[in-house]
């Protein structure tokens, strides 16, 4: 592949994939430490009714209504999960299970009842993503990166994901201390006067924004795996939160880049002619990284974590 081909065909998906991966991994670190990592899975299920309702309401499959519908559905489900957890006095994992299966079922039901088979394809797109289609025809050489005219032709997912990532990185930096304290020691955070309930809900809200933003660009497989795999792998590399975040960002980038490259060229190297799904390969790479850190990460044996027998 020459430079021009790389810039127009590979650079945008690699960047979008990396941005999406980091945007999911950042809140994923805190969700993991709060034992709420499955919320990303929940979000990916509950957006279905949101997408269907948005389609019924607007009659189109354009990006913004779909994203808005997905986000609204996700926020409703977060409120429901919180309400069930409080009123029923049950742990959040169980509340998530109830809410996300119910919302998903509701979405399927809506889909059947309204006979919206035309959006069926698009739902699949939302679930599996289509990273390979995010190409930049105007990007002909490295010089295109400096040309406004060429930049205007970038796939809209790229600036959108970049903005979402920027917002999430800034929020993480700004609220670093409250997040760290309330995740570690909720009671102590409250004695400092921190609104821990609001902090917890805001974290889920931010996670929803990254998840919905990333869904549209890269599909839910990447979203779910990036919320969980890079942070979990990073946790096994270090006993410092700051370093854990850094490792998780590194793992997210490695997964996105390596996954994309392997999906495009791996089968060719093996003598097959078809490329495989980039989203699937990115998720697989992140899973492999997690497996490697689970076997050899320096901090894999910890208090309260059953030891893996090391070879």
């Amino acid at each position, binding site marked *: 592949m020459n430079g021009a081909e790389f810039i127009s065909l590979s650079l945008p998906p690699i960047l979008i994939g990396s941005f999406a991966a980091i945007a999911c991994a950042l809140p994923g670190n805190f969700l993991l*430490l709060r034992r709420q990592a499955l919320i990303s899975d929940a979000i990916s299920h509950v957006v279905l009714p949101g997408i269907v309702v948005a389609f019924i309401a607007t009659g189109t499959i354009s990006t913004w209504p779909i994203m808005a519908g997905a986000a609204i559905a996700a926020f409703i489900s977060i409120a429901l999960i919180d309400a069930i957890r409080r009123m029923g006095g049950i742990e959040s994992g169980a509340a998530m299970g109830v809410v996300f299966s119910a919302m998903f079922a509701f979405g399927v039901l809506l889909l059947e009842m309204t006979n919206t088979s035309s959006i069926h394809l698009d739902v699949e797109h939302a679930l599996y993503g289509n990273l390979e289609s995010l190409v930049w025809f105007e990007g002909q050489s490295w010089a295109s990166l400096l040309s406004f005219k060429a930049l205007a032709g970038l796939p809209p997912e790229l600036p959108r994901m970049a903005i979402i990532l920027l917002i999430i990185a800034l929020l993480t930096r700004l609220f670093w201390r409250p997040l*760290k304290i309330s995740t*570690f020691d909720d009671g*102590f955070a409250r004695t400092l*006067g921190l609104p821990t309930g609001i902090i917890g809900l805001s974290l889920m809200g931010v996670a929803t924004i990254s998840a919905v933003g990333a869904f549209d660009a890269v599909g839910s497989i990447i979203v779910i795996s990036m919320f969980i795999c890079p942070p979990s792998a990073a946790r096994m590399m270090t006993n*410092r*939160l700051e370093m854990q975040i850094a490792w998780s960002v590194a793992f997210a980038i490695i997964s996105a880049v390596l996954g994309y490259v392997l999906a495009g060229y791996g089968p060719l190297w093996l003598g097959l002619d078809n490329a495989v799904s980039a989203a699937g390969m990115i998720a697989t790479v992140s899973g492999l990284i997690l497996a490697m850190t689970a076997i050899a990460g320096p901090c894999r044996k*910890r208090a*309260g*974590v059953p030891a893996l027998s090391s070879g």
Partner: protein
Amino acid sequence: MVLGVATRNGRHVSEDASGHSPLAIRGLTVSYGEKPVVFSMDATFESGAMTAIIGPNGAGKSTLLKAALGILAPLSGKVTCFGKPLSRQLEKIAYVPQRAGIDWDFPAPVRDVVMMGLYRNLGLMGRIGAIHHEKVMSCLARVGMDGFADRQIGRLSGGQQQRVFIARALAQCADLFLLDEPFAGVDVATEKAIVKILKELRSNGKTVVAVHHDLSTVPEYFDNVLLMNTTRIAEGAAGETFTQSNLLKAYGGALARVQISAAV
């Protein structure tokens, strides 16, 4: 009715004096379910003194502290701190919980945990400088844990963890220290060291309130005693309040009688 509260010096302070108390609790009722575990509780802690909260397991001591701090929402009651609503005085209070509620697997070394005691002063973005690192190390040194600064918080013994949380409270530079069983699971030498630190705080004019279980050391360590079992049983100077009849009221039962007569 004016209930008298005997102070360390034998003076009598009416409950109206609660306006100046570091922590005054009025009619506090807390429940987790149907039945209140703290019921119509009153307490007035004396400024610049060390007070022990005493009562049997399940008496509601931890609950009282948590509700007084706003960690738990009470059903009713009023809590004031130095005469003002507690929510506006939080920066004057340091709290050491009863080894609970903490994620021991959290990726933070001991020094980070103590640094959290400085977060209120640092604010959201305040830069952590050499002063702050020195403060952290000096607080750790006071509890004899400076050699463990880089150890992950879960990889300590129970007593060592307790000392780290006391160091975090020291870093907060509070005026009122609330400690829930600071001596639980701590060896004799450490217990003496912690008592020494608490007495230093008192001589600097700080107020110390600690839930305490070892009846035999109450008069030696504490100036005042608050005896409770769901509600207040007795409150005042240790010499007058820490009596066999009050203890029987709080603990009841034959088993307690054996322990109590050995203690008093």
